[in-house]
């Protein structure tokens, strides 16, 4: 059978960097191809060329054997290519139907045929099990639902080839599972799919074939049955990456205790009856699907919110009455969940972000001591391998992994007594995940008490000494890492912890 889509020796250069170097790919009807690579490997550039956003310097894209004119999104749409962007190309203030219909009719028609649009949308929803209320305002939908609208929009344009750019980056684990079920169903109905990812698990779960990109070149292509996660990781990074292994070490004395902790907002219990003890020199994992109370817990610990019930004490001192700077001064380091919104200010240079959290330490007589701040920033950049950064680099230009190293560095250099790490490796590629994990374990070995909030089972099992599950604002009893496996943790995350064997 001839391929539906061929990318033939695509080369694209931006200035001195070769973003794509003679990349060749093909896709058959009903295929699911995963494009695997680290951030910056050239995946997104390649897909933008496919979709006509960029014109390649050499090579061509063929759909059903016919070459597409380069740099013309409209031609790609007409040829049946649909793109599901990572940052959805949708408007929150418009309805689902309006979002889907934009640009699908002749622009100068005196009236838009919304009833035909409605029928077509309903037919597509039915066929692929992508339910969506056409009159709902898009901004009122959950992220998972919005992604379904983005997929429907591509299908509405009669796409036969769907390209999904990091589709699970914004989804919770159940939403991601549902997405992959939908994708398989779509492939079974004759659509061809490419999805971009740097997550080994999902590539192995959903793809038929896996193409690995590294440094702009296709370094390998494997059928799913003929490869392993370890091989793919090595191909992707270019060397064997091993996540660090946790060594057993005895925990120290308790530094942070919560008893009956509760937070009630707007008549809803965000947290209820939460008990835990965090000891020096250990990693306490809190695992759960996002939205089960992790964010309120992190806010309580960092002092941006006050508990409405129970006590929260660090070193015997109640956190309930302390301000955020007090808590930081007490020796609390924080790695916020949303690094780009809460962790750093992208418009400001690296050095300002490096000192922002502990400004009093870098001030003299009410003025910022720039020399000391700069020196500190350099120390962070060198000590934590923040690539592509000088103290004066605009922070927004750094990749996610390097931003995270900056945040880790500015906290860990000062040896915090407690480190609150919320989703520390979310969205990072394999190399950066390993680096972040190694740093966390080093801090643990030096006696820092680490509270790890994560929804990544592997991460929690790799790093934690003891694990709580968080479900609906309640915490399970802690279980020792050695006494659980994935299956049992999965049950705990679903709220079944009565028989989990608390310690």
């Amino acid at each position, binding site marked *: 059978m001839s391929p539906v889509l061929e990318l033939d020796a695509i080369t694209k250069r931006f200035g001195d960097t070769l973003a794509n170097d003679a990349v060749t790919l093909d896709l058959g009807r009903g295929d699911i191809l995963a494009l695997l690579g680290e951030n910056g490997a050239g995946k997104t550039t390649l897909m*933008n060329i496919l979709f006509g*956003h*960029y014109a390649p310097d050499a090579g061509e894209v063929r759909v059903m054997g016919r070459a597409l004119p380069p740099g013309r*999104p*409209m031609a790609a*749409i007409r040829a049946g290519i649909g*793109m599901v*962007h990572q*940052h959805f*190309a*949708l*408007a*929150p*203030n*418009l309805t689902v139907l*309006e*979002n889907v*219909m*934009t*640009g*699908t*009719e*002749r*622009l*100068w*028609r*005196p*009236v*838009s045929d919304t009833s035909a649009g409605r029928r077509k949308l309903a037919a597509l929803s039915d066929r692929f099990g992508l339910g969506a209320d056409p009159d709902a305002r898009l901004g009122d939908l959950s992220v998972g639902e919005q992604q379904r609208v983005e997929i429907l929009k591509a299908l509405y*344009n009669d796409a036969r080839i769907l390209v999904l750019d990091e589709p699970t980056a914004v989804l919770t684990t159940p939403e991601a599972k549902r997405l992959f079920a939908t994708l398989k169903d779509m492939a079974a109905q004759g659509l061809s799919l490419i999805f971009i990812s740097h997550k080994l698990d999902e590539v192995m779960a959903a793809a038929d074939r896996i193409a690995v990109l590294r440094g702009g070149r296709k370094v390998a292509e494997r059928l799913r049955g003929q490869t392993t996660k370890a091989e793919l990781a090595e191909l992707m990074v270019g060397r064997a990456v091993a996540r660090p292994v946790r060594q057993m070490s005895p925990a120290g004395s308790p530094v942070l205790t919560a008893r009956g902790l509760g937070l009630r907002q707007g008549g809803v219990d965000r947290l209820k009856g939460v008990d835990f003890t965090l000891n020096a020199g250990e990693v306490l994992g809190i695992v759960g699907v996002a939205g089960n109370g992790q964010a309120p817990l992190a806010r309580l610990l960092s002092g941006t919110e006050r508990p409405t019930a129970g006590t929260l004490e660090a070193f015997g001192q109640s956190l309930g009455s302390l301000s955020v700077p007090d808590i930081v001064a007490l020796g609390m380091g924080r790695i916020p969940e949303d690094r780009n919104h809460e962790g750093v200010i992208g418009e400001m240079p690296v050095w300002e972000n490096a000192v922002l959290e502990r400004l009093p330490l870098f001030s003299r007589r009410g003025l910022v001591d720039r020399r000391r701040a700069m020196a500190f920033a350099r120390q962070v950049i060198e000590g934590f391998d923040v690539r592509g950064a000088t103290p004066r680099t605009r922070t927004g230009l750094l990749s996610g992994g390097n931003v995270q190293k900056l945040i880790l560095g500015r906290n860990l250099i000062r040896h915090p007594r407690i480190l609150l790490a919320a989703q520390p490796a979310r969205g990072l590629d394999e190399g950066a995940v390993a680096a972040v994990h190694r740093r966390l374990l080093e801090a643990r070995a030096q006696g820092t008490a680490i509270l790890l909030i994560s929804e990544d089972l592997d991460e929690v099992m790799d790093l934690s000494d003891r694990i709580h599950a968080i479900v609906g604002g309640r915490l399970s009893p802690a279980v020792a890492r050695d006494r659980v496996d994935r299956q049992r943790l999965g049950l705990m995350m679903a709220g079944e912890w009565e028989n989990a064997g608390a310690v």
Partner: protein
Amino acid sequence: MTDILAILASAGLWAAVLRIATPLILGTLGELLCERAGVLNLGIEGIMTFGAMIGWLAVFNGADLWTGILVAALSGAAFGLVHALLTVTLGVSQHVSGLGITLFASSFAYYLFRLLVPVAGTPPKILPFQPLQIPVLSDLPFIGPALFTQTAPTYLSIALALLLGWVLFRTPLGLAIRMTGENPHAVEAQGISPVLVRYGAVTAGSALMAVGGAFLTLSAFDSFIPTMVQGRGWVCIALVVFASWRPGLALLGALLFAFFDAFQLRLQTALGGQVPYQLFLMLPYLLSIAALAVTARRARVPQALMQPYRRGER
């Protein structure tokens, strides 16, 4: 109290409301169109002034009244193109570009006026639009003199409000314009150029503003005075927010503001002796601020308003 009732019962008040509203309707529609595509146009005050001047000047030099309107529209379109060039193509701050256009267009209007019109004791006059006699309707008691003694541009402005409402909410083009104001990347992803949409909307919107200005010299009055726009442009910007970016509500808002204005003019004469007239002048603005405070909090601002669009960047 009887004074107030007498004012409300006079056909003259309602005729004045429509007359005062016309430039506001046109200006608000123009601004609304720009903002729906994601471009704030603070050039409005200057563009209205320039439209008032150039339309009048054309008629003063022998053109007919509709040609005067057309000349004003073209001048507005030209300023719109400049604003689009600066904000869409060059990505300059929309505030700065708009204020620059207002300062430039107002001064340039005055300069041209001084250059081309002989200095005289009283400003020179033209023969403005005359009220349109509509068979039957104009002869109705009360309703006739209250609503159907307007000039053609007033009826046109109301028709334009309905037309713009239709275009924005019923046609594929309108959807593309609204989407451009919400998320230009989505428009691009559907194969439409958000740059072209913004150029079109800003140019057409600015033309409407200039026509609103020209109404002042070609219909409401008969001569040009450099300060005659008197902040109407800024009122239009507030009215766009008041109207939640909807043409129908914009029409309503302009009429409401005009009602306050016409009412206070008559109150001045009725109660003139007892209260300083400046208090009445303030009234429409005070009431608009109150109305804005009530309605604008619910308004859904176009998400991409004031955000320059660059391809491939987010």
